[in-house]
């Protein structure tokens, strides 16, 4: 009789969510093919796929962004709202152009990006390691499970003031706390991903005579990749959100700090400019993640 595979009993919401996103993010929608596999390469195949889907969704998304921009321009011009609420894009644009030429701006960018990279790297390594540990040592995993799962719900950010007092007012409390926040989804997803590897793959590893390392690195990890990658994506998101949120609350520098600082100085244009920069950073990260997932997972998806 097969043993029970030990995995967290809860499917983290994000795993389901990320799978749905991943499924949607390829963008292509094709009709299911009933006959045996047709040629998979060539212009004809690509053309057929695109004809089925209609205009590429990326175009529609860009269209929405453009529409929002036009709305912003029109609204400001027609004075639908005061410039205190949302300055006209021209003003914000020129403020941004000026900021980009200052050292302070790039210092803030550098600090925030450094924090994000540090947190992300730490979360990847620690999260993956812990995930593997909990998978290989089910008792340990089960014991920690309620805490891991509930920590999704717990706003770690409330520990920030205490951390600042202990460590000091610099990037370190941010890095430490954001790493905790980002490590949890990475751990859970690694664990679930590995535990969820189809039984047939374990049997295959055995009949092919795979050694321990071969089984883990050449079968288990690639098989678990979709779910593990969802964890990677969440780790990156939490890295950004954690870092900037904490900077916003209380920090000597960084993009989040700058937003607050400009607000307190009543520099609306500069504040909105910084907000846009953060949005652009988030967009950049989202594109990177999507590209990475597409590259690693794209070939696995049925067309």
């Amino acid at each position, binding site marked *: 009789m097969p043993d029970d595979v030990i995995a967290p009993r809860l499917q983290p*919401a994000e795993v389901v969510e990320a799978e749905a*996103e991943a499924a949607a993010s390829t963008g292509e*929608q094709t009709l299911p093919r009933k006959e045996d596999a047709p040629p998979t390469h060539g212009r004809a195949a690509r053309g057929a796929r695109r004809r089925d889907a209609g205009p590429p969704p990326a175009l529609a998304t860009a*269209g929405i962004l453009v529409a929002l921009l036009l709305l912003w321009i029109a609204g400001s011009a027609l004075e639908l709202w005061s410039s205190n609420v949302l300055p006209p894009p021209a003003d914000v644009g020129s403020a941004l152009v000026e900021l980009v030429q200052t050292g302070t701006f790039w210092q803030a960018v550098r600090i925030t990006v450094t924090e994000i990279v540090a947190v992300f790297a730490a979360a990847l390594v620690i999260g993956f390691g812990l995930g593997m540990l909990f998978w290989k040592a089910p008792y340990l995993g089960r014991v920690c499970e309620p*805490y891991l799962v*509930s920590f999704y719900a717990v706003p770690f950010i409330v520990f920030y003031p205490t951390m600042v007092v202990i460590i000091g007012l610099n990037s370190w409390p941010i890095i430490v706390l954001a790493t905790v926040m980002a490590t949890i989804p990475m751990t859970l997803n690694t664990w679930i991903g590995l535990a969820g590897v189809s039984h047939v793959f374990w049997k295959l590893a055995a009949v092919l005579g795979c050694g321990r390392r071969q089984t883990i690195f050449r079968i288990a990890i690639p098989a678990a990749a979709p779910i593990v990658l969802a964890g990677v994506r969440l780790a990156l998101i939490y890295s950004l959100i954690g870092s900037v949120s904490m900077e916003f609350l209380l920090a000597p520098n960084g993009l989040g700090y700058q937003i*607050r600082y400009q607000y307190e100085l009543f520099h609306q244009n500069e504040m909105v400019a910084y*907000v846009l920069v953060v*949005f652009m950073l988030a967009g950049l990260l989202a594109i990177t993640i999507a590209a990475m997932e597409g590259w690693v997972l794209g070939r696995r998806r049925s067309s």
Partner: protein
Amino acid sequence: MTLALRVRPILVPLGSFGLLLLGLAVWQLCSGLTFVIPSVPDTIDAVFSSLGDPDYLHDLRATFTRVLLACAIGVTVGVILGVALGYSPRVRAAVEPLIVAMNSVPKIILYPLLLPIFKVGMTSQVIMGVIHAVFPMLIMVTGAVAHMPTTYRKLGRALGASQLQVLTRITLPAVRRSILTGTRLGVSLATIGVILAEFFTTEDGLGRVMKQAYQFAQYERLMASVLLLLLFCFLVSFAVWNLERRLPE
């Protein structure tokens, strides 16, 4: 390798409890190392004395109200928009990247943009909570509706059900698991949103209390508030998780 739990089942909750005790022990140890971390008994004292303080209770109630409001609105909006998007693949394909990108933005930075419109006070903080809470629900429900087995929709058509009936009798029950999970996430995110907003503009509420405690070095009060907040989030999450587990699926 399928790995079995080779110990008696009772040892698992015991182990978890043991981990909790270990955590408390570490906390107590650390409190001895620095004055910033109050000891466990001092914190518990502070919790009880705070709960006896009418001003504190006022702040607690204020935060609570905002969180519940934000959660209720966020969940409702999330479900409505999620179902709408789930039904329309074209719109979804266009809008989804934006939603995903929005999900990865630290939403607190939008707060200064809200303030000139809504002024400091309940409304702006609740809206901040809503903005935090709505996205996970939206993403989950959209995904669930979009991936609902087409046989469900066919069933609705075959039975001659009206649009409303399909919605209430087929679609919503089919995605109730996502709704529950979205609610669970929504509560904690609404809490974060409201607390962060309260940190930023100090009027009343738990966020303000914490900020003040930090500024005046009242570390017992700070830790007590943190604890209460964590307890609240943990309990709500746990309760909804149990509901989720009971769903027959």
